[in-house]
């Protein structure tokens, strides 16, 4: 595997959901119209997602669910999908990730914002990668990164973890061909991650970075770990298929690795007569 990449490369930046989204493509058509077209489609999907999920837009489906104007059962299938993923996220994090967050008034309302970003970033990365065979793609949504490499002559993307105390420095790098890296912390937006049980902002850690095969779940784990505080280290060390990097309150760091994921997560094959029905 070469250490450098000679392929043409191009970057696009779009501001969606009040954050910058950087899209990088490398491969023979990176600077041609085909890549531009695929990126435009990805950006359009990001904007559609914001229209559906934004808690700041009173007309979004999520806002209407929060106000009681829309019965969740009548919501867009994508909203239902996200709601189901939020329930799954709560299960796998022992309740430390929760989309039913208490607001300033103490009332709990559906707020999937913490999951939607990772979910949609991974989604558009997959779409881009499908649209651009023989290319590598990277999508960085406000610091959470999804990558897919479909070339075989390129090195993995080199992803740097910022020092939360000095954002001009990098604490470590990870090379990744397929998967996601998510960081939760207070360095850029202040204390915005709350303990789901109390609604009180979490402040015990400086940052938590989680790397895994899917950005969606790496992001959920990073958010939950940040809310959990220092006790998250034990949980992250048992997280198979994931690498985590924690900056504690005193600035010291912990690196935690679960087991390599060697067991495929396919269900057992069904009887031959029922194969080919699109089961996964």
């Amino acid at each position, binding site marked *: 595997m070469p250490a450098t990449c000679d392929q043409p490369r191009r970057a696009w930046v779009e501001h969606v959901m009040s954050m910058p989204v950087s899209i990088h493509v490398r491969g023979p058509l990176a600077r041609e119209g085909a890549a531009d077209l695929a990126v435009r489609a990805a950006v359009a999907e990001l904007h559609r997602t914001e229209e559906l999920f934004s808690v700041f837009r009173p007309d979004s489906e999520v806002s209407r669910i929060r106000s009681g104007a829309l019965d969740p059962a009548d919501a867009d299938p994508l909203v239902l999908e996200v709601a189901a993923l939020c329930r799954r996220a709560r299960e796998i994090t022992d309740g430390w990730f929760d989309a039913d967050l208490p607001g300033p008034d103490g009332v709990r309302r559906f707020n999937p914002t913490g999951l939607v970003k990772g979910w949609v970033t991974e989604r558009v990365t997959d779409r881009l990668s499908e649209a651009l065979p023989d290319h590598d793609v990277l999508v960085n949504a406000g610091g959470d990164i999804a990558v897919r490499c479909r070339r075989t002559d390129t090195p993995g993307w080199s992803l740097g973890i910022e020092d939360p105390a000095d954002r001009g420095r990098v604490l470590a*790098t990870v090379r990744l061909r397929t998967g996601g890296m998510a960081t939760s912390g207070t360095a850029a937006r202040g204390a915005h991650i709350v303990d789901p049980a109390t609604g009180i902002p979490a402040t015990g850690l400086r940052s938590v970075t989680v790397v895994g095969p899917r950005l969606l779940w790496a992001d959920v784990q990073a958010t939950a770990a940040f809310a959990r505080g220092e006790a998250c280290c034990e949980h992250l060390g048992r997280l198979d298929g994931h690498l985590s990097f924690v900056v504690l309150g005193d600035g010291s760091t912990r690196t935690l690795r679960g087991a390599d*994921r060697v067991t495929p997560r396919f269900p057992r094959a069904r009887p031959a007569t029922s194969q080919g029905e699109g089961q996964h």
Partner: protein
Amino acid sequence: MVTRQKEEGSVRRIVMAGVGTTALLVLLLRFDASNRDASAEAAPIAKGTATVSGTFTGDAVPTRHGQVQVRIVIENGRITKAEAIDYPRNNHKDQEINSWVVPKLEQATLDTNGTGIDSYSGATVTSEGYQQSLQSALDQAAK
């Protein structure tokens, strides 16, 4: 051992019995889960003799997730090498499942200039804060 292998007559079983190569095991488990019937169609090998040497290539077997083909090298009845010479790698899920290994932290405490970093992860950047970010400089360079 060889005799028993002959009776069972499948590349999959021989490899399962004799090889601890993790990657291959992953592949074969996956193969198994994908289509158990197809795996039984792999060509019988190691006919007849008590000790066998040589290179054996199983039939390419279509599975629901793509084609799988395995080659093994046997020396004096022992498998000394096994490799998948064809396996599904057409879509992302396959690549992910066939290749995912927890990555390592590569370097610690870097100055940020000129280190070949492709992208930066940190606490969520706001659009207002983006202009000052490391990522912004990278994006500008590749526009």
